[in-house]
């Protein structure tokens, strides 16, 4: 587990919560952190280069734009094929996550998880059919788990490490 410098931690927290919507947002952050605008931009660049930032830009709420159906598609992929299949599934823009996770037999046979958003369920089902066709998954067991009620969704904040205990950390949506 990586330990970031206190400066980087503070910067990560701020850019996770969001840039201010002002003409010079990095200068505004610099004021907050009592450093120069240049140090903020270099810091963000440094954090980006380490590779654990997925993206940096406008974070859109799909549901508000009418993407109401969310299907977690789980696949039972032979271990020898899981990398290749993961790459194939993960390449499509309507797939927002594609993760390999362990099987837990006998209850849980699926080892690849992909998240698909669509305007409605039939759109999600069509996209799954498209993936099956494109990635050659006709013989692969899979299920679509549509989301129903949301019991808890923490915002996209990113507390400091010192807040992890006891407050916990939020993930991106």
């Amino acid at each position, binding site marked *: *587990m*990586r330990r970031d410098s206190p400066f980087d931690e503070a910067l990560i927290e701020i*850019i*996770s*919560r*969001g*840039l201010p*919507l*002002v*003409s*010079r*947002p990095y200068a505004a952050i610099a004021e907050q952190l009592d450093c120069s605008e240049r140090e903020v*931009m270099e810091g*963000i660049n440094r*954090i980006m280069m380490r590779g654990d*930032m*997925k*993206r*940096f*830009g*406008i*974070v*859109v*709420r799909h549901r508000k*734009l*009418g993407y109401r159906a969310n299907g*977690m598609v789980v696949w039972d992929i032979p271990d020898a094929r899981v*990398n290749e*299949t*993961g790459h194939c599934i*993960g390449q499509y*823009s*309507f797939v*927002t996550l*594609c*993760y*390999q*996770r*362990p099987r*837990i037999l006998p209850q*849980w046979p699926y080892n690849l*998880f992909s998240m698909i958003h669509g305007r409605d369920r039939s759109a999600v089902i069509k996209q799954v059919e498209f993936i099956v066709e494109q990635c050659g998954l006709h013989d692969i067991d899979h299920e679509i*788990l*549509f*989301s*129903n009620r*949301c*019991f*808890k*969704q*923490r915002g*996209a904040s990113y507390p400091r*490490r010192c807040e*992890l*205990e*006891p407050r*916990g*950390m939020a*993930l*991106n949506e």
Partner: protein
Amino acid sequence: MRQYSKLEQRLLNEFQQGMPLTSTPYADIARQLGVYETTVLETLKRLQTEGVVSRVGAVFRPNRVGASTLAAMAVPAAELEDVAAIVNGFDEVNHNYEREHRFNLWFVVVASDEDRLQQVLAEIEQCSGYPVLDLPLLNEHFIDLGFELKWT
């Protein structure tokens, strides 16, 4: 859902990544879109107020600090709300969803370290009386380029 202007559509679609690291990033975006910087800022503020934009910022992969997992439980429908409330009671839990499956409760647990993570899962099992599937991330097969919105 209201109609979105061409400018809003382009902002939402083309700038989910690659926020410029320059002194005036919104002016750079404005230049690319052929509008004034103030228009970009006002549009983003409006979209944020409407809830369409959550923020302009960084999205990190999970597991960056501490330990995390995706957990699942199979709970009888009549008890689902009660068990969900037990799960929600842990500060380490976020993203707790009902999904349509025998495993009908899915949530993400993020803890300061692996020991604490396992402790939370064990306590949830104890309090609820149902076993928890622990499905940690093994490998990510995905490049997050944002989500392509279709406007038709």
